[in-house]
């Protein structure tokens, strides 16, 4: 027995012992509660030592037991060692039924699959990727997993929906009292914005670093105010996988075409003008679109007031050229971006709370004129799926998708019309991640569709020579080429929930039937 939410998706009434609230609209929920804080800490004595000898000692001193709730950040991406190191130790200590709150997971976290199967991890809330998502789709978790956007994770922590017993925060530099940063050190990764809220709300906070520096570590993102212990290890991650040498723009003619269409659309709609702002990422199409926007800005002598990233060398070069006033950085992806964050005062680190939390009174997403986002599927109602592929397997986290889409003046989904014969457009998406009411334009190489709700955009683009058509017409063109795919089969058992950034449930993911 389930409830049908506003998008017509069936969701269970409760999960993991808690009652669920169905999605009612992107800006409909008005919470009445207060934020839930932690107990006031017992004062530290002067010069009390926080430096511990090992991860094991930290786990013991933090009182991590069976059923503990533990959190991690994902700034180290696929080069991370910390999650696996901590979980290995937890396994060795015989602790089980742990609930994990990572801000995201990557293929490197494959060792967690075995722990899931053994019940060492009973569920994951936050995000999952690759092998862990695959395990979830095959029903290997004890509980129902919950996926949240970056902003949604912050909201959940502040509202007390997530209670973190112990936050393990990897840092590329820290002092022994716990001031920590990611902007310098052999394993540097840039901002530590995803961990700020963990440091403020978790019962216990442990900094794990491979680079202990004399007090006080500066600059710092995590304040020692919130830190209980510090552990030094040999290495927190693989530098080659944490940040890449360079990120390249796509060479694929299809993706370049999509980027070209997207930027022409914005230009014709009059969006690219002096002082405008946009959000960018490291995806191929997003980078190409950024480059084309840069070309236009350069040609016309206009500047962007700010850009929110997903920062790569490409954007840093535009900043250096004077085409962008300020670069706001939530996470970065390459060496050049790292250097820029450290050295350029116009390149600023911002927390995910500021950028994306729906309750942030200064939510940066709300100020952005344009966001470029991807999708695995889009449907006739403009609902977007980024979590599952058409076969129903959970393969990606939400990232900032829901947040950026809700806030941005124009949200553009830039996607190829089909991948491996599978159409990206469908009558109904397999899983709803982001509701159609927050999606404005879908750009494929076969056609561009404007959300019928955006009558202003439709009017602006009336005389455009771009291939603008209804989303159903793009779908027909695609199906003519690929043929119509069959629908995947699912079992009844719900294995994960997609939570919207306001804490309501927008969709449920069921176990795949194979």
């Amino acid at each position, binding site marked *: 027995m389930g409830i049908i939410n506003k998008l017509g998706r069936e969701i269970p009434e409760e999960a993991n012992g808690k009652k669920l609230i169905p999605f009612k609209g992107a800006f409909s929920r008005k919470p009445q509660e207060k934020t839930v804080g932690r107990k006031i800490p017992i004062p530290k004595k002067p010069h009390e030592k926080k430096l511990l000898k090992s991860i094991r000692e930290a786990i013991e001193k933090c009182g991590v037991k069976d059923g503990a709730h533990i959190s991690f950040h994902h700034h180290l991406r696929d080069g991370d060692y910390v999650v696996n190191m901590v979980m290995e130790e937890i396994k060795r200590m015989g602790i089980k039924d742990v609930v994990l709150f990572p801000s995201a997971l990557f293929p490197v976290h494959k060792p967690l699959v075995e722990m899931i199967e053994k019940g060492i991890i009973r569920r994951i809330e936050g995000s999952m990727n690759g092998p862990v998502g695959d395990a979830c789709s095959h029903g290997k978790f004890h509980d129902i997993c919950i996926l949240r956007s970056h902003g949604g994770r912050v909201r959940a922590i502040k509202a007390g929906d997530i209670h973190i017993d112990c936050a393990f925060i990897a840092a590329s530099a820290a002092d022994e009292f716990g001031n920590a940063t990611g902007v310098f050190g052999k394993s540097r990764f840039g901002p530590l914005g995803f961990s700020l809220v963990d440091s403020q709300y978790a019962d216990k906070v442990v900094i794990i670093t491979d680079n202990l520096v004399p007090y006080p570590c500066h600059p710092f993102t995590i304040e020692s105010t919130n830190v209980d212990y510090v552990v030094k290890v040999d290495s927190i991650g693989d530098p080659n996988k944490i940040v890449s040498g360079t990120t390249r723009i796509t060479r694929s003619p299809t993706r370049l075409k999509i980027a070209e269409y997207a930027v022409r659309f914005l230009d014709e709609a009059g969006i690219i003008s002096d002082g405008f702002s946009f959000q960018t990422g490291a995806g191929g199409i997003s980078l190409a679109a950024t480059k084309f926007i840069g070309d236009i800005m350069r040609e016309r002598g206009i500047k962007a007031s700010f850009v929110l990233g997903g920062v790569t060398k490409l954007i840093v070069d535009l900043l250096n050229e004077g085409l962008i006033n300020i670069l706001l950085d939530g996470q970065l992806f390459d060496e050049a971006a790292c250097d820029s964050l450290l050295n350029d005062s116009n390149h600023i680190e911002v927390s995910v709370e500021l950028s994306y939390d729906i309750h942030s009174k200064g939510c940066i997403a709300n100020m952005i004129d344009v966001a470029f986002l991807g999708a695995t599927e889009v449907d006739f109602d403009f609902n977007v799926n980024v979590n599952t592929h058409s076969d129903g397997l959970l393969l990606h986290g939400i990232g900032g998708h829901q947040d950026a889409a809700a806030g941005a003046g124009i949200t553009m989904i830039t996607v190829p019309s089909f991948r491996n*014969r599978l159409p990206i457009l469908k009558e109904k998406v397999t899983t709803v991640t982001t509701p159609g009411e927050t999606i404005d334009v879908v750009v494929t190489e076969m056609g561009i569709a404007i959300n019928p709700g955006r009558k202003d955009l439709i009017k602006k683009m009336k005389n455009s020579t771009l291939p603008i058509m209804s989303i159903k017409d793009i779908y027909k063109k695609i199906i003519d080429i690929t043929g119509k795919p069959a629908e995947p089969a699912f079992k009844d058992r719900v294995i994960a929930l997609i939570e919207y950034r306001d804490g309501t449930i927008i969709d449920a993911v069921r176990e795949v039937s194979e």
Partner: protein
Amino acid sequence: MSVNNLLSPQGGVCGRDEKSDCIAEIYAFDHLEIKIHSKVEKFFKEQIENTIKTVLKENGIKTAKVILKDNGALDWVIRARLECAIRRAT
């Protein structure tokens, strides 16, 4: 289209193991057997099977062993590769 199609026992193979392509193999057999291995099996198995059957019919082939290893090839690509495999097998 030629009607007399004696498929040789060593059969014919055509195609590449690459994205958007497929490898079609056809051998002489005493009944019709079609084996499909595809990345998109869950979605297009029926369509691919129908395509194969259509091509066989167009070439007057009633019995054969057909193996298709598919990497998301579009319909016309499957047809082309199978037709080539048939020609190579005759």
